[in-house]
């Protein structure tokens, strides 16, 4: 074991021991038995300095700790010291497990048959557990931060509202704007491709625009196209147009000189060269823009709704529910937006892998 692992193991065991002592002296023994059992086992883990323990033992301890902490939240109010020590101990065991497990996995091996996924999942679950335990155990006002369980319940109970908002913002504004913006950027890139003059005029501007706070056009679009989704789609079109333009133009120039000379020796026409060489070679660039734009589109649509909407839409819901201090609903919308954004991105990545399978960045993964 490395220095860090020794230290973590010692700390985890020590915290368990202190927690156990606190737990035994405070209150009746049969109260929160699971927590105490976990702390006892955690203390026992100190035998690892005599008998080696596998890292799965740490995983089991972390799991037991998580379960005992989650079930223990409701028992006391306010939560006693040993509850928090148990939380810290389970966090430390999880950390120790991750630390030891990642040494076992071959370095640089990204996905060891799904095993590589365990670590980020452990991390994500740990965050949720700590969030839940702290917000409920310490009675954090839910206006500041509601516990995940409450957000989950809110999602489950407001599916019709969330679905209507999703439909309004994502299915209408985002998707339509995204398709139009990306399509336009692509077509304009193809059109100006034959004119070096236009290219050298538009490209620096395109690069400049990508650094500008374009979401600022939202109020103008709302004024021009009204409160409903077309104004949001218009913002999305403007936001996604330039990344697509710049990337496609760069991609069309990505084919190497030799590859182009080859087409010339075949006396290939402009369109033959475009279709058979330059567009396929531009694929990785175009997908790069599609991925950047997937995030930009969602941001654009949501922010544009801050400037006025009919009474539906994710951005509308977020800004009004914040005003009413219904923070759990805000988090529910954000969760939906996060899932929508990740799935959107994920789908594009999957398509990218199918289409640009030949590119080293995809081949290597």
């Amino acid at each position, binding site marked *: 074991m490395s220095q860090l692992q020794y230290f973590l193991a010692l700390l985890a065991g020590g915290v368990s021991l202190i927690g156990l002592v606190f737990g035994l002296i405070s209150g009746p023994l049969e109260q929160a038995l699971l927590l105490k059992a976990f702390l006892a086992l955690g203390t026992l883990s100190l035998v690892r300095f005599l008998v080696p323990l596998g890292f799965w033992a740490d995983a089991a301890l972390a799991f037991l700790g998580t379960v005992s902490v989650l079930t223990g939240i409701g028992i006391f109010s306010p939560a006693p010291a040993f509850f928090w020590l148990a939380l810290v101990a389970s966090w430390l065991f999880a950390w120790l497990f991750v630390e030891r497990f990642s040494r076992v996995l071959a370095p640089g091996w990204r996905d060891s048959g799904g095993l590589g996924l365990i670590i980020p999942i452990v991390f994500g679950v740990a965050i949720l557990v700590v969030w839940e335990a702290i917000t409920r155990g310490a009675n954090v006002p839910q206006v500041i931060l509601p516990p995940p369980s409450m957000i989950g319940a809110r999602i489950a109970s407001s599916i019709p509202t969330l679905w209507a908002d999703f439909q309004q913002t994502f299915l209408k504004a985002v998707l339509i704007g995204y398709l139009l913006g990306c399509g336009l950027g692509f077509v304009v890139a193809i059109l100006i491709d034959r004119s070096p003059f236009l290219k050298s005029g538009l490209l620096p501007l395109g690069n400049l625009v990508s650094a500008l706070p374009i979401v600022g056009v939202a109020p103008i679009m709302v004024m021009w196209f009204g409160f409903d989704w077309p104004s949001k789609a218009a913002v999305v079109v403007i936001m996604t147009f330039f990344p697509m333009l710049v990337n496609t133009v760069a991609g069309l120039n990505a084919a190497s000189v030799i590859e182009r000379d080859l*087409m010339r*020796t*075949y006396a*290939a026409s402009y369109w033959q060269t475009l279709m*058979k060489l330059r567009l396929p070679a531009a694929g990785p660039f175009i997908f790069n823009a599609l991925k950047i734009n997937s995030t930009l589109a969602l941001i654009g649509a949501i922010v544009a709704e801050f400037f006025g909407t009919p009474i539906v839409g994710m951005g509308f819901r977020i800004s009004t529910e914040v005003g009413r201090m219904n923070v759990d609903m805000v988090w529910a919308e954000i969760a939906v937006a996060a899932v929508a954004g990740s799935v959107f991105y994920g789908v594009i990545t999957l398509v990218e892998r199918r289409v*640009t*399978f030949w*590119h080293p960045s995809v081949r290597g993964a």
Partner: protein
Amino acid sequence: MTAVVSARHLGLTFRTNDGDVVALSDVDLEIGKGEFVSFIGPSGCGKTTFLRTIADLEQPTSGTLTVNGQTPETARRDRSYGYVFQAPALYPWRTIEKNVALPLEIMGYSAPQQAERIGRTLDLVNLSGFEKKFPWQLSGGMQQRASIARALAFDADLLLMDEPFGALDEIVRDHLNSELLKLWAATGKTICFVTHSIPEAVYLSTKIVVMSPRPGRVTDVIESDLPRERPLDIRETPEFLAIAARVREGLRAGHSYDEGAV
């Protein structure tokens, strides 16, 4: 013998920010049908530029150049040559057979014609069985063989090869050289071959054009009298070594006066 390539007082000057660079100066050369001509010289001597001029990838600034009696541009539009570059330049998104099919698609061959030619040329370069592989799944030598197959696919009589084996190791190179000779014998094509390896030039060629830089020009043209049938160990015979010595002499003569220049 009719001249496939004929250059008269050919000159080419590149204009760059640092002034003019004379890449070719007063080049006179005749290449007959069925010949195997190597161009050899240090970098900057214009051997690649000359090949590219034949291929209409560069435009001469003086003199005349004909390919099959036509201008290089007409010859290119007639698809009268196949070009093999320094790198395989296979398209990574196409399988080997699709790469060989590329010129055939562009030139409008029908699907059955394409299939027949792909099979024939891949067989010629010993790549049968690798049709469905992608270029990045093959070794460098196999990739370069595939690119030769691609240049052969549309049956041009002239094959222009620009240091095709330069990036490969010695053993693979020897192997490909003897394969190339066999291919040449089997097809009777005219081949122009750029190299900077003396043994390679002597081993392959019926004619060796020695060039020298600043300005790029032809300093010697050596007709090789080696037999057309050449096993690899011909490279140890006195005849071979004599020609090699003459090539080396020519290279040294062209290079001596500006030794030390970068």
